[in-house]
């Protein structure tokens, strides 16, 4: 019960904080619309206009990933700047539980991206929004967002030790877009990259969303794998938070900015 209250109140608080951040609103709405516009122009120019919904979904997921990434990257660092990291670490609940709602709120904010690209695509480029399996889409979307949030928690835990988190966040943005095949098929990539794609929740998430929206494949298999990766992420995060917190205490680097 206590855990549920911590998650609910942390989620609500962080959502309000993110809502006042112009940088987050840019990342979660404007940037995905820009990439969606580029993808629409590119697909339309290349006579692949039938794939515009494919592009809108991919650009939206790019926004979800960016928001999760920058949110997770910044989460620990912002707490350092605000001087509240020690309070979070010193609180009786585990760090995983303290920061879980923050990470979930980051990903939830990322969901604005998908809404923004679909609405933009419909209004400006006339993208038809006919979903093959609308109910499965409604199921796949939160599952993917939650799984990304849990993966963000793993990233955030590493940022307790790594103080240049934003740089790592910058580094991971494009590579994960590429390895997850968000706006193109991963079959274009070298075969050695496949295992990397398989361990990324966005890869299975976009497959689930794409199959639910466009048909042409099972939704349940990628959905199950997204959920499994989410569970694995929280298990890993529980270990890494404990490990990295202890290391940061040992080295007395926890609050160093």
């Amino acid at each position, binding site marked *: 019960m206590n855990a549920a209250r911590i998650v609910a109140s942390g989620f609500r608080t962080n959502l309000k904080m993110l809502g006042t951040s*112009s*940088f987050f609103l*840019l990342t979660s709405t*404007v*940037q995905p619309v*820009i990439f969606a*516009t*580029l*993808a629409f*122009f*590119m*697909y339309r*120019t*290349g*006579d*692949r206009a039938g794939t515009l919904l494919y592009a809108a979904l991919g650009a939206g997921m790019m926004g979800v990933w960016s928001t999760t990434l920058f949110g997770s990257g910044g989460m620990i660092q912002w707490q350092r700047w605000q001087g509240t990291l020690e309070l979070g670490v010193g609180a009786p609940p585990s760090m995983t539980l303290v920061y879980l709602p923050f990470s979930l709120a980051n990903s939830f904010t990322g969901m604005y991206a998908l809404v923004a690209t679909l609405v933009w695509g419909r209004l400006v480029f006339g993208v038809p929004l006919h979903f093959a399996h609308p109910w499965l889409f409604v199921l796949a979307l939160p599952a993917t967002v939650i799984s990304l949030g849990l993966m963000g928690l793993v990233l955030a835990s590493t940022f307790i030790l790594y103080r*240049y988190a*934003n*740089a*790592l966040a*910058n*580094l991971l*943005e*494009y*590579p994960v*877009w*590429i390895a997850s095949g968000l*706006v*193109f*098929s991963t079959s*274009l*990539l070298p075969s050695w990259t496949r295992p990397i794609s398989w361990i990324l929740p966005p890869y299975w998430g976009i497959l689930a969303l794409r199959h639910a929206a466009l048909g042409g494949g099972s939704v349940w298999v990628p959905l199950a794998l997204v959920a499994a990766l989410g569970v694995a992420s929280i298990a890993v995060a529980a270990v890494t938070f404990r490990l990295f917190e202890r290391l940061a205490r040992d080295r007395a680097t926890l609050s160093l900015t």
Partner: protein
Amino acid sequence: MRTWLRIFFVGGAISFRALFAWIRPAVYVPTLLLGPTAQVLFFAYLGRTAHLQSDSWFVIGNAVQSASSAALFGMGFAIDGERWTQTLSAVLATPANRAALFLGRGLPVLLNASVTSATGFVGGALLLGFRPPLSSIPGLALLVLLASFACTGLGMLTGAVGLRMRDVPIIANLSMAVLLIFCGVNVPLDKLPHWMHLAADGLPLTHAIAAARRVADGASLGSVTTSVLVELGLGFAYLLLGFALLRWFELEGRRHGTLERA
């Protein structure tokens, strides 16, 4: 004159070293050296899927465009960073010549933008087999320098706006997005709506990218003189406009006591 040059070169270099957190290798390498290659790869794969253009076309467009991230953020932070470190008032209280003070900050940014752009070309060569004729490389290097200069000019303008609007990362991000969409980086200009095509003519990068693509195809630098001159002119125009705005906002900031308001 000697003081002017000292402020321009030494002051610019010290400011660059002092204000950029990302000059540390742990930050600099992922952000500015690996980022352009990742961007090149992403759009080349997207281009293959869309059946749009060759990989080389995307390598050139995105490598040249990546100069804008270093230039826009660099110039933005060269000005706004002073406010964050609470040294803006001290800097503006000095009797130093403002042209030397602010234009000097542009030189390291320009060089850094060129290096950033060059890594995109190297990444494209290593991972996508981009092989321009050897004879075209000096021309391409000059065009990268030119694009970096024009972007630094735009950076001066957006940095000046940051003195008033306070949110430099957002201004820089939005400016980069405009360049990415409008300048023919990933979509041929003639395939964009007419008004976008017209707007692109007045933006940095458009002419440098078009010229770089022609030079990489084997054209001589002399055959793209018009593009070179237009890009150069745009760079000077943005630089002067940015400098004029900077002076104006400085005076306004002094008058209203808002210089240090973050």
